[in-house]
């Protein structure tokens, strides 16, 4: 039966315990490393020490994270918690998509990679109709034109653009 304490806990139960445990463990580990990772400078006031603020921050993380863990109404990891961690793992697929996009842009070029990435991910998400694929291609072109062509954000020209003939090469580096 759900207890009153569990009912009053804000947010879902699944995954809370694992997150709190991981958070406190990481904070404690970083706090243990404080002597190694920060310096204590002689003839410097306490509040101006380079170690002062990391100590405050990590101390706060351990203390408040620990209290949060202690006051949690659950003490055991259930299968719902494990299912939730699996759900977190699902997001890793999109991290990989994102990183592939990031790594390919400087090699192949912003416009070509975006033109493949957006429709492909749209396809992967289950939108198979030609209408959605055309919308995704239109979106990809619009993004490149607005950000690189119009707003001139800093995205360098790709390695492949070097092989294009003269005027097209400089145009591609500047706008595509």
């Amino acid at each position: 039966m759900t207890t009153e304490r569990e009912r009053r806990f804000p947010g879902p139960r699944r995954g809370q315990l694992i997150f709190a445990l991981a958070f406190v463990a990481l904070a404690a580990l970083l706090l243990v490393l404080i002597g190694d990772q920060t310096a204590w400078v002689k003839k410097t006031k306490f509040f101006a020490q380079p170690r002062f603020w990391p100590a405050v921050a990590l101390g706060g993380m351990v203390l408040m994270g620990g209290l949060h863990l202690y006051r949690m109404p659950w003490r055991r990891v259930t299968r719902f918690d494990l299912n939730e961690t699996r759900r977190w793992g699902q997001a890793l697929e999109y991290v990989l998509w994102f990183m592939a996009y990031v790594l390919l842009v400087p090699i192949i070029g912003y416009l070509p990679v975006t033109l493949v990435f957006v429709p492909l991910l749209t396809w992967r998400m289950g939108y198979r109709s030609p209408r959605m694929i055309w919308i995704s291609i239109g979106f990809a072109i619009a993004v490149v034109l607005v950000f690189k062509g119009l707003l001139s954000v800093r995205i360098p020209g790709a390695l492949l653009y070097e092989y294009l003939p003269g005027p097209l090469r400089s145009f591609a580096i500047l706008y595509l």
Partner: protein
Amino acid sequence: MDLILSAIEILMRWDVALALLAGSVGGVLIGAIPGVGPAVAIAILLPATFSMDPIVGLTVLLGIYGSSMYGGAIPAILINTPGTAVNALTTYDGYPMTARGEPRRALSLAYSASFFGGVFSVICLILFAPVLAKVAPMFGSREIFLAALLGLLLVVVAHRGQALIAGALACFGIFLNTIGMEPVKYTQRYTFGQDFLGGGINLIVVVLGLFAISQAFVLLTDEDEKIRLTRLRGGMFQGLRELSRHPRVASVSAGFGVLMGMIPGVGEFTAQFMSYTYAQKTSKRPQDFGRGSSEGLIAAETANNAVPAAAMVPLLALGIPGEALTAMMLSVFYVHNVVPGPGLFQNDMDFVVALYLALLILNVLVLIFLLFATRSLIQVVRIPNRFLGVCILTLSFVGVYSLRNSATDCVMAAGFGLVGYILKRLSLPAVPIILGMVLGGIMEVKLRAAMARVKTPFDFIDRPVAFILFSIIILVLAMHLLRVLRDRKELKEAEWQTKTSSMSFGGLMWRRKNSFLKDRGKQVRARHAKLLRRLTDLF
């Protein structure tokens, strides 16, 4: 008057006009799409604004911030899904109006109330600016440190029931800010010998990860929602007339919005809650609230739209952002070497007034746009969720990569995206991390500067403003402690009312064993045995 004229002169540029238009229309669109809040849009657009003039860049961002709530009211009223988080209260009275066949009335009332809130707050602040200009120079290092500490504290205690983890996450933000080369003694902090950590963790990378990429992950891993739109009938101008029948509710709600917006860490939710409660308590028909009350809708929409202008006050006057969106805007100032704070109010007052005037013009533009374009605009809510996720992920790349063309930044942003995704799944707040990062940096610098001139601890609060801020900090802490104790007492009472002994066999055996082994148990059994003997002796 001269001040306003010179402010108008700053705004009389084609790029500012374009920024106003882009900010207002873009903000409304972004607000109208559930799942894309102003935080996502501002995070993505931040690096693009770095190449613009401060006034142009800030106008775009302020435009998105100010107009997204107008747009957010559309799905809140039509499909009972708030477009931005702050429109949640709009659904209470807006959707019931749609359900009874008055969607146009609800929308027009929401636009009018939002317009009133926006304009009221800007006028208040333009009138208030000379006072601020006098007060701001009273803030030295220690006052700014205390104000930043107060802001952080308010953000933490505002998360009722989650204050401990919010505090821990704020400390995580402070920790993130300390990573890298320390700028005074030139020592490394938590770089683990890695070059890419030497320069520290960029705020924009964290912001994009926690707000934009994480939202993309949420949308990509979720199901699409089925949306059924209602047809709009009736005139769009009736809301203005209806608003004029409730001047008291509108002005008090706007007042709450201005007041709460100025306090760091409090913002829209508290302003809305207070104005809604006020409107309900003073209404002649309180039973209508939550069932399509026009007063309820006015209170919610006026209060949340009065906040953006007011939220700029702590940012401009003290350099202290009160919430995530103004924290992002702070980085635009830093990129252009304009340091917001008391100096800005003394030296560039026309710039401040120009920003407020831009917000005023923006409100007018948004209202005109919405009154005429709502019918076509409502189609944006049809965009499927997962496709939106694809769009946000694509746009996030521009935001992160254009910053320094660094793949490492992208890896870090993706990592923070994952952290943000987990926080969203667990309903934990990400805002304290951002404010911890920004305010932690300010606190470190200001405390170092302040302590150089302090001999005893009491010297720290010997100036009037410092003393007032310190007293408020103590008061906030005391009130939070009282609230925690009261919640604890309520919990105990509720537990006592529902508590029954464990029904499990193991629990029963445990209690029996304790009763046999503990001294108290022995005493009780001896007393019972004595009473039983007396009773049996009687017969």
